[in-house]
């Protein structure tokens, strides 16, 4: 069976762990627990007719106190850049992180997830920000770990990108 390592990267409290929990176990909890270090989960998906075992490394979110531990990225076949749509600053962090990741493991497939779409009234990404994103030309999926919107699709899309490569 093919095995692929995927990392969840993003600022702290953007919902990385919740996305993994929604994808792997189909559950969501409002309770916020900070990830310390790394949490690993797995899920087997079918991509273009073959079984792929995804090993999901949920890395501790980066903030002003905690730096992303780059060693954990080694061997990743792809990664998600997770942004909290209700906090503009997390997008900036995502840009920084992307550069760091690319510097560490090179150009591997990734998808940017605009998470927390269920909180529409608190949405903080304006046109300017969206313009910057489309400029970058990255793959982008709106997700909500709470409602499950886009989660399954996001993981499958990344798995496909990794297999095609």
């Amino acid at each position, binding site marked *: 069976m093919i095995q692929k*390592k995927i990392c969840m990267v993003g600022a702290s409290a953007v919902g990385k762990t919740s996305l993994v929990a929604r994808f792997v176990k189909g559950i969501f909890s409002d309770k916020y627990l900070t990830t310390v*270090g790394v949490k*690993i*989960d*797995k899920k087997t998906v079918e991509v273009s007719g073959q079984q792929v*075992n995804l090993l999901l490394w949920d890395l501790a979110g980066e903030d002003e106190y905690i730096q992303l531990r780059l*060693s*954990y990225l080694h*061997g990743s076949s792809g990664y998600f850049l997770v942004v909290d749509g209700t906090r503009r600053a997390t997008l900036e962090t995502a840009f920084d992180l992307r550069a760091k990741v690319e510097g560490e493991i090179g150009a591997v497939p990734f998808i940017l997830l605009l998470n927390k779409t269920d909180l529409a009234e608190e949405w903080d990404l304006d046109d300017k920000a969206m313009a910057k994103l489309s400029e970058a030309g990255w793959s982008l999926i709106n997700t909500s770990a709470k409602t499950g919107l886009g989660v399954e699709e996001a993981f499958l899309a990344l798995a496909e990108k*990794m297999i095609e490569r």
Partner: protein
Amino acid sequence: MNDSSAQSLSDREIESGRSPTKDELDELRHLLLEPEQEQIVRLQERLNNPRFNVDDVSRVLPEAVTLRSSKDNQLTSALMPTVESALNVSVKKNPQKLVDIIFPVLGPAIRKAISSALGEMVQSLNETLEHSLSLESLKWRWEAYRTGRPFAEIVIYHKLVYQVEHVFLIHRQTGIQLLHVARDMRTEEDADLISAMLTAIKTALQDFVHDSFGGGKEDALLEFKVGEHNVWVEQKTHVIVAAVIMGEPTEEYRRTLEAAAGNIQREQYDELEAFDGETAPFEASRPDLEECLQQQLRTKKKTSPLLWILPALLLVGLGVWLFFTIRDNWRWSDYVEKLRSNPGIIVVSDEKRGGKRFISGLRDPLAIDPASLYSEAGIAPEDVESRWEPYQAAYPEFVLIRAKRLLQPPDGVRLKFEENTLYASGIAPRGWIMEARRLAAVVPGVEEFREENLSDASELQSLKSEIESIAITFATGSSEITADQNEPLERAASALRKLKEFSESIGKPIRVEVSGFADRTGTDELNLRLSHERAVSALAALAAKGMKQTDITAKGLGVRTDSPGASSQQMQSYRSVTFRVILPDISSGN
């Protein structure tokens, strides 16, 4: 030669300057190519003839099969369906044939399988027996109960130096698990997660070490402990081999791990370098990994037979000593108890010193000799040191014995001791009675001397004489007691009453004979009858006077033998009744 001739012909033609005709060319071709053409025809015939083909193939087939089999498995794959269907058809057609063929193989195979299974069973039975009843196993059962872990696990935990439970082969760059082997494959499901976590831990630890102490990140790490498990990680450029171990592995095991990692990297270097998530090719490394699933049992220390013979001997010795000690103690306490129950012996102290018994106390000289009880109690006299102080016990039997020794009562006297009083009864000489009154007071234990039932022997004697001197006389031919005889009759009655009292006091009957006599007047027959009537008449008169003797007999004795030539005075005394007192044999009345 053909070539040279062709060459020469051509040359000639060129020299002659004319073109050769078609026939000439045909001839030339024929000359030049005939042998080859014949060969071609032969080959053509051969190819068209199937018989020839079979022969050829049969010549090369064995070599061809061998050659191809040595290169790859394609021939096997190609033949497999045919062989399978052939077997299938054969079995359907005649199964017996196949049975006959495989029977010689099947028999030994079954025997081997059974003996191997039995061997394992016996081995496990041995282990179970060995551990089901020992003290150690009880301890382990308690531990299993206390910790809630299965007994088998506790046994393994204690019996093992170490046991490798899982070995993971991990791609170093990605942290993806390539292969996993385990002693108990039930945990297979999450093995890839464990591998990923191991990699994460390894990464974190290496980063930590690097950040904290510096040094190259590539340094081969690492050992860490998770609960009761040790995790040993051996890494090469492309692979990590991680072993999860229960117990403390030996340094030798590190070399095994190192060798396995080295081997796998060498053998599968290309696959490792080109790894893109496909783990199937790494199945080839399974034997290397399985090699790492080692265990080492604690070797049982052989104990020298002396180590258990000595305690056994000591135990037996102790047992024997204990037996004899307990028996001796029983015997001794039995003996002391017997002594205590004997009158006249008071045990004051009883102890054991240096293997000897010491006993001391008071002993009445009249009591039993303590030494005489040794043999009955089973005690060796030489083992006993005894000291007895004499004393006089107040036991009634002893007082009586002492009184008898001191007073020396004559025959006819009985002594009795009751409630501190010494009673004397019977008939004794006056002198002894006087002596007894004096001596009784000094007999220890005697407070009072009573002699109401003791009779003076001389008094009895004088009473006897008095009674025997009385005679009651009668008129001639009469048995009637006249008034003048009242006085002797009265005396006799009084003396007999006294005699009766004597008799009662000594507790023995005193017999009295009343004899009637007659004088010579008349016939003997008459005299006999008369003498009898006189005795009976006297007896009746005495009874009337209050005599209560029971042991009294009356008989007529006829004429007195001393009567011839007697005076009339004497004659009267012949017509009389006299008494005889027979005193009892007092020697037996003691």
